[in-house]
């Protein structure tokens, strides 16, 4: 199981690490209780500053995804999956809200926005949206 970062990406490197670890927890690739590499190992392997990886781990810890147990190491929390789902849902809600506000600001009506969303869903996943 690997993690890949792109140092030239506009997304900060620590956020790429956070996102990828969260995605693996959400998909079940990283099971609850699974150990993670130390900050030193991951920073060394990715040839990054240790502070960058430490910042990512701190953010994951603050979000309740991982748990640092002193010298024992860093582990995925037992309730990490639900926490990641909650984070994903809230991030999706925020994105949709911003998009709706932008569309309303552009002068589209409520009905037009609903139509746009329905069409977009039909294109993205036809089976689920077809009655």
């Amino acid at each position, binding site marked *: *199981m*690997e*993690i890949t*970062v792109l140092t030239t990406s506009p997304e900060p490197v620590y956020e790429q690490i956070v996102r990828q670890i969260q995605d693996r927890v959400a998909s079940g690739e990283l099971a609850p209780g699974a150990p993670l*590499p130390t900050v030193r190992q991951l920073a060394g*392997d990715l040839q990054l500053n240790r502070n960058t990886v430490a910042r990512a781990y701190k953010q994951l810890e603050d979000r309740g995804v991982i748990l640092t147990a002193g010298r024992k190491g860093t582990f995925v929390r037992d309730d990490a999956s639900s926490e990641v789902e909650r984070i994903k849902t809230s991030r999706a809600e925020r994105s949709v809200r911003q998009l709706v506000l932008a569309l309303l600001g552009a002068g589209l009506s409520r009905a037009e926005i609903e139509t746009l969303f329905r069409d977009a869903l039909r294109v993205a996943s036809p089976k689920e949206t077809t009655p």
Partner: protein
Amino acid sequence: MSEWIDFVVYVVQLVMLGVFIPRQSVQFTVPAMVDRNPAWPASHPERMRAIASSRWFLNTFYAWTVLSIGALLSQRLGLFPSIGSVDTPSWENLKNLHGLFMTVGVIGYLACFLYWTRWLAATVPLAATRTATLKPRSPSDYLPGWWRWTIEALTAAQLAAWLILPALGFGGGRRYWATFAFAAAITVSMSVLAHYTTRRRPSYGDRLFGDAYRRLELRVYDVMRVVAPLALGAMTFGRIAGLDVARPGHLAVVLFSCILGFAFLRLRPAQPGAPTSFKPAAHERQAAA
């Protein structure tokens, strides 16, 4: 003991350092560049051709080997002037001459390695895309439990023996404890190196040889933890017993270094798809191909 035995042992070590290890080392050239930046070799074909055709490194070491063996042979045949005093035994003169050439060879090898790493860092930029495993590395990934426990037990038993024997009337004195301190320092250093080796980032050696590379490193440090204090102990107690252990002890150390060299030479590039704890990302493999 015939001094030709000393000569043969020294020649084996000189050939190891001057011929086989440089030949094995040049295999790392391209993987080292791919490790830093998979796209760089493909985008610089001229430089790659120049590197592939360059033979100064190998030729320098071949010349050093021929010169060293020639000097030792001349010394052995009495054609080379003694570098010690006239009272120095001839085996010791041979040993000193060998030591001189080995020092030059090792310093030369390290200088080439330093030059190479600096050239690599200055010439090949780090890739923007970097991949790492999310699996923590631990010694148990590379060495079985029985090996690790045996090494720990032997290390503890040796250090305990060094401490207990003076109480039983064997050894003791300033020189004894200085040797013990040296043995303990080697043990601690090797433990620290093994600890670092488990955690260090995968290098081009890991890419080329797979897990066998890190496994060999760990085994070397573990063996050194046991063998170095054992050799020092044997030399100390040989001296206490009135035996002249300097010459066989030195030859044993030279042979041991040759065994370590052979272990390095036995490494073979890992088969594609062989299980390793680290693999480059798919896009890196494509770029390298």
